[in-house]
């Protein structure tokens, strides 16, 4: 079995999915994100990029949330196997 890869959420490609490992942001930001579902152990899917390439739309808990690259690079994701074929 291949080791599943940990990556920055900002580096994950569209259609990738994985489990959040860490969220390393200012207290008030991570608190807000936590209530949107960005918490360790929760599955996140990369849906699409905004027309300008940033922000990116993620699906978490059945809700679509857009984050800028600046924010997403402070979140790490353990990619699901088979995610990057």
């Amino acid at each position: 079995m291949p080791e599943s890869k940990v990556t920055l959420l900002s580096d994950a490609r569209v259609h990738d999915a994985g489990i959040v490992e860490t969220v390393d942001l200012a207290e008030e930001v991570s608190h807000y994100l936590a209530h949107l579902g960005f918490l360790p152990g929760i599955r996140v899917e990369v849906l699409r990029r905004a027309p300008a390439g940033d922000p990116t739309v993620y699906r978490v808990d059945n809700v679509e949330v857009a984050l800028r690259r600046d924010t997403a690079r402070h979140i790490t994701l353990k990619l699901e196997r088979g995610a990057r074929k």
Partner: protein
Amino acid sequence: MSCHAPVLEPIEETLQTASTASRLRTVALVGPPNSGKSTLFNRLTGMRQKVANYPGVTVEHHSGRMKSIGRGDLTLIDLPGIYSLSTYSEDARVAVEVLTGKMPGVPRPDCVLLVLDATHMNRQLMLAAPVFSIGLPTLVLLNMSDQLEARGGNIDTLALARELGHPVALISAAKGVGLEVVPDFLVQADGTLNTHLRPVQLPVLQSPSACRAWASQVTTRTGYQSPTASKWTQRLDSVLLHRVAGPLIFLAVVFAVFQVVFSIGQPLSDGLGNLLANVGTQLGHMLPDNWLRLLLRDGIWNGVSSVLVFLPQILLLFLFIGVLEDSGYLARAALIADRVMRSIGLNGKAFIPLLSAYACAVPAIMATRTIENKRERLATILIAPFMTCSARLPIYTLIIAAFVPHRLFLGGLVGLRALVMLGLYALGFLAALVTARMLNSSVMKASPAPFILELPQYRWPTLQSLAMRLYDRGKLFLKKAGTVILGVTFLIWILSVIPVHGGNFSDLPSSVIGSMGHVIEPVIRPLGFNWKIGIGLLSSIVAREVIVGTLGTLYGLDPSTHSLGLQAALRHDMTIGGAIALVVFFAFAMQCTSTLAVVRRETNSWKFPILQFTYMTTVAYVAALVTNQVLTRLF
């Protein structure tokens, strides 16, 4: 299993042990942002709070009597959406203070209606734990049951109620389904006041991760099936957020709005104008031929009806804004615009307040309460009045219809008038952009706050919601015409006939207003404005639309333009340079006392409104001066 039966079981047990019943008075409506609290509030009270399909519409607490369900004795408080009871922004602080009885002037709620969006329970339930801990009788309302069912989700309300220790019911606030559970609950809650509720297992430490773990456990144990993502939302987004098509559609939508305001709105407005003119003439004949006829017909009727004719255009504009807000497209627009917003150093969250400033700056400035970062909030407040609010629409359409020829390009798709209008909107946005840039590089240097935006599922805007918006807007507009504008035109008329010499009124140039006009004329002459425009500008400091009423009155009184319509009178009296300079002036100037008052309140100081007024008026003056000087040399 069926999800419809409202489950009130857990409370029934406690009901029997209830001792003396103290009277229930206040009910609080609590829930995460965009869970449909305001829609439910409107249903239960029969009132009309603004609702829209994006988070953060309610930033203040509102209250109303629960008349629609026959409980006019109870007050329902609608709170801003909150994710938790930890407070990071102004709107969340308001919610928590009301809920804990710390808000001065608001009674502590006796029971709680907790509204959660049934389509994503895992994160919505995170709020339930802290709300239950307050210890008030709580009814959990799982909203959007229609969407849950349509997309194949399932909730076992019976199991959930047992797990939570509070009654649970599935409802659809938008469709009015399942709401009969609310009066039942209120009757039972009345009996349970001052009694202990059945203890529930709640997370001890209410950190987000603990609440989340608890919520996940609850949903797993009760067999919650989350609905599948809406296929339509996915399909629409693949087009509307497409790399190339997305921004093009965005621009096309914005342009179409202006095109329709002209191509459909203008004929309607002209028709209404003719109608009002005829009514005025008829009414005039019924009045004695003396000063009273002059006052009522030439003064007030001319003034007020010259503003009233813009009602069709205002309503059309708000119909569009309503469709964009209710459908969920607005959040996508925010996503597309984020790149631009970032380049001027503004948080994407500022987009929604700024967008609502296109309707009116007052609610927009209040909506900035959702911005956590104090400096960004202040910057947004300071630039919001540059956004082209609907009060500018009357003077814009008046000048454009009078001075810009009706030309169509691209096979009739693109009109010159709509293009000029779009240009004026762009001008306001540009001023906001440059100002934000300046603020960002000097006083407002701040760490970049993150852009976090929820994209709601697309929904069909309901006719009822659109009709309500138009009704409210129309009422507001008519009310303003009947109060502020009527008052100002009355004053203008009085000032334009005094002093009275030997029983005769002064003629316009020798009246008080004429002399005032001639005093200020040298200041505005370089802008291409005559003294009547000057009086219009002075009167419009109250509110922007007032200028149209004032001009209607002044030109109606002037013998040389008396028989002409306002458009023709303006063409007779102004050059194209002056006319365009006038709309440019309005694009920038801070002609609105309500906005100044709300800025004073939200910033808690006179410094900012005074600064803002001075700055915007200076910019307006210089821009109008340049416009007039350049255009006069060109044409």
